[in-house]
């Protein structure tokens, strides 16, 4: 069982290397994080906060946009694309179960994403440390950022698999993935913000809003990271929310894990029903 899962995972990683997917993802993450670290840290110099920590705060916001996008792009083709190319028929006629196949894909894609994150963000961290800006606690923040980014990525990989098993054409799955990204990463926040602005002191703001943030893995990710930085006042923005929360920010991490688990289970159920 493990050897078959690893075979599928290895194939995904190899394809990721061959078609330069890993390289591209790592480069995008490196370029954006370097830009944020170099440009964004100029005004922070006087605040006396570890520059690595400030950078991690900006990178958390970057991850919210980029990681789901990269994950969905990796995943949308995983099942319907294989149906289109006829390889799913061939692979599933081998003695491998569908769940093993799906887990193999997920492991491979997760490793691709983790590699891109470690290289992309690691480059930025390394540069800051080499320039004498880093401290040990700042590095710990970096590690936490990368680890939670991988978890966020798994949430959206699994979402991509769900979309991929619901559609028969990879073009449809691609369109659906873009729509899901827009809704969960951009529009969800806008809607929450709109509702909050409309009635800043009502029931929504105190009882609904915090849990609405918890439900969306992108928001839960940002909430957990900013709260964990413990530099709320300095980072500003959404971080201020963390203090007013009616629950422990660790719950956000739990929410991410549950979302990833449910989405993986959902795609496992869906792939069992496919007639390739």
């Amino acid at each position, binding site marked *: 069982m493990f050897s078959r899962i690893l*075979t599928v995972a290895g194939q995904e990683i190899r394809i990721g290397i061959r*078609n330069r997917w890993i390289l591209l993802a790592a480069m995008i993450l490196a370029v954006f994080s370097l830009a944020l670290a170099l440009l964004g840290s100029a005004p922070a110099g006087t605040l006396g906060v570890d520059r690595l920590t400030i950078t991690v705060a900006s990178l958390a916001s970057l991850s919210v946009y980029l990681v789901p996008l990269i994950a969905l792009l990796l995943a949308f083709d995983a099942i319907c694309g294989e149906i289109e190319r006829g390889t799913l*028929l061939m692979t599933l*006629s081998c*003695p491998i179960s569908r769940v093993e196949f799906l887990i193999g894909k997920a492991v491979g894609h997760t490793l691709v994403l983790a590699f891109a994150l470690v290289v992309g963000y690691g480059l930025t961290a390394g540069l800051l440390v080499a320039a004498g800006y880093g401290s040990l606690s700042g590095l710990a923040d970096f590690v936490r950022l990368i680890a939670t980014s991988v978890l966020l990525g798994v949430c959206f990989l699994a979402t991509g698999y769900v979309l991929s098993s619901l559609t028969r054409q990879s073009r449809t799955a691609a369109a659906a993935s873009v729509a899901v990204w827009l809704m969960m990463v951009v529009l969800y926040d806008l809607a929450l913000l709109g509702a909050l602005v409309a009635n800043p002191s009502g029931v929504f703001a105190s009882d609904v809003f915090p849990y609405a943030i918890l439900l969306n893995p992108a928001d839960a990710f940002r909430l957990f990271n900013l709260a964990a930085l413990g530099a709320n006042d300095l980072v500003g923005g959404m971080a201020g929310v963390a203090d007013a929360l009616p629950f422990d920010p660790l719950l956000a991490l739990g929410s991410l894990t549950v979302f990833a688990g449910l989405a993986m289970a959902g795609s496992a159920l869906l792939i069992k029903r496919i007639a390739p």
Partner: protein
Amino acid sequence: MTETSLNAPTLRVDGVCKTFSGHKAVDDVSFSLNGGERVAMLGHNGAGKTTLFKIVLGFLKRDRGDVTVMGAAPGSHDARIGTAYLPESVAFPASLSGKEVLTFYARLKGERPARALPLLERVGLAEAAKRRVGTYSKGMRQRLGLAQALIGRPRLILLDEPTTGLDPISRQTVYELIGEIAGQGTTVLLSSHALTELEARTDRILILSKGRLVADDILSRLRAQAGLPIRLKVWTRPEDLDHVSESLGGGQMNGRSVEFNCNADDKVRTLSAISALGDLVEDVDVHAPSLDDVYRYFSSAAGKEA
């Protein structure tokens, strides 16, 4: 392996029906295949060949009937271990090499890659093994697919239109391989609508028409069953044409030749009548009904019944 399991049919399909939203794709089909048989399944597009394959592989659920693959349920782990399948059109990951693709499938089938890789040589891809599959021609990709199907010596191989779109030489290679595999005791079931090339390359022919199995026999017996006439063409000099035509019992005259049909039973008698004409005959063409003709006979007969 016990002797009974060797003698038991590799694949048994019994009264299988499958309906897609009111359309009968497979209608009460029964047959069984034994070890080492090369069987061709013929049928027009949409006759139900691929649907039947997918039922045998366990990808589709049958509405009625029974299928056993080497004594196991279709799609079960045991059935899949002994079965290999080559779908009609496969696009392997273009950025991987042929060797990597074969290694991948060998691992999935639990075979050591080192034992599977010589298959590339057997299908004539040894030199291209390290090239990207994206650079392969259609024939090469098909041969890679065939190599995939040969991994681990399966007992049943299903090939869905393995020669469609291939040039004559690639086709010949494919059939040579199929012959070799069957020689080792593996049952090969292939579907095709390129009929003429199947003659002499298969042991048995199944003909599907509109989801129903309308013929299941060896080709010579199907020919006899169809009772199709043999077409003879006798070449002669223009001035002898009338005489030749008369002595052979009439027929269509085209300037220098006489064409007529004769039954399979009369073949020898007619040929001796022709040779009795001696110098009058310049040449003789004997055209036995081809598989095309036999196929057309059976599928149109089924069409009239329906």
